């Protein structure tokens, strides 16, 4: 019933010359998304992926279990010296991410261009 979560990894260089790993999600982010969210993140070599940018543009539904997966990723990233950013959230999910405190540990941007310009 829950739509399968897909994830894809792109590597980019920001205008400032930093390597940015873009993790793009598609579908629902819920309890069934562990492999697509945490698994995809954990497959990235920590030493060479210091800036991780999450793309939620094609995500329609995120529930509290999905938010918990994002928090688990932030914990691992913090422990590995990585910084996590995100873009493409709807105004509602920007509000929800802010309410639960995620924005303290992952800066949100309206678009990929805004994020890349800042990184």
């Amino acid at each position: 019933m829950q739509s399968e979560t897909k994830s894809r990894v792109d590597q980019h260089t920001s205008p400032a010359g930093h390597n940015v790993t873009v993790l793009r999600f598609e579908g629902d982010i819920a309890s069934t998304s562990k492999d697509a969210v945490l698994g995809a993140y954990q497959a990235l070599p920590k030493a060479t992926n210091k800036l991780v940018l999450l793309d939620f543009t094609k995500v329609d539904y995120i529930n509290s279990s999905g938010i918990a997966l994002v928090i688990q990723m932030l914990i691992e990233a913090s422990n590995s010296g990585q910084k996590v950013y995100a873009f493409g959230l709807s105004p509602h999910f920007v509000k929800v991410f802010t309410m639960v405190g995620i924005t303290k540990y992952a800066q949100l941007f309206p678009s990929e261009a805004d994020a890349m310009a800042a990184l």
Partner: protein
Amino acid sequence: MNPPKAISVEVRLPSRLGFEKVAMSTASAVAKLMGFREDRVEDLKTAVAEACINAIEHGNRLNEKLSVGVVLSAGEDELEVKVIDDGKGMKSQPTKPDIDRKMHGEEDPRGMGMFLIQALVDEAEWVAGTNGKSSYVRLVIRLDKEAE
């Protein structure tokens, strides 16, 4: 003139994760018909989804022989949603998640559903069933006549 009669819509969901989206869609359709703003509809959708997930996971313990009842009652200026399960009801009250404690492993990363429900609607109450069954959460969102 007689007062307008509340309109009721009922949905029964199997106790399987993912079916909360059926309740979300129904609540969204009713709220839109009532004239709620899009941002309030989104708040309601998340609150209803989290209430149904709690009912499926904690109330009915994923037992597919049990169903979750969702009753939407549309009044003149408010929408009430009851999500009913066969559990004993929630023992805890919603608490605001502490992201710093979560990040330091002192608090479970999960467990934000009740907080989100309470934060996103105008009223939320958790009622335990009298015989350890038919517990429900009752949510209310109100039309803001100035802003809608």
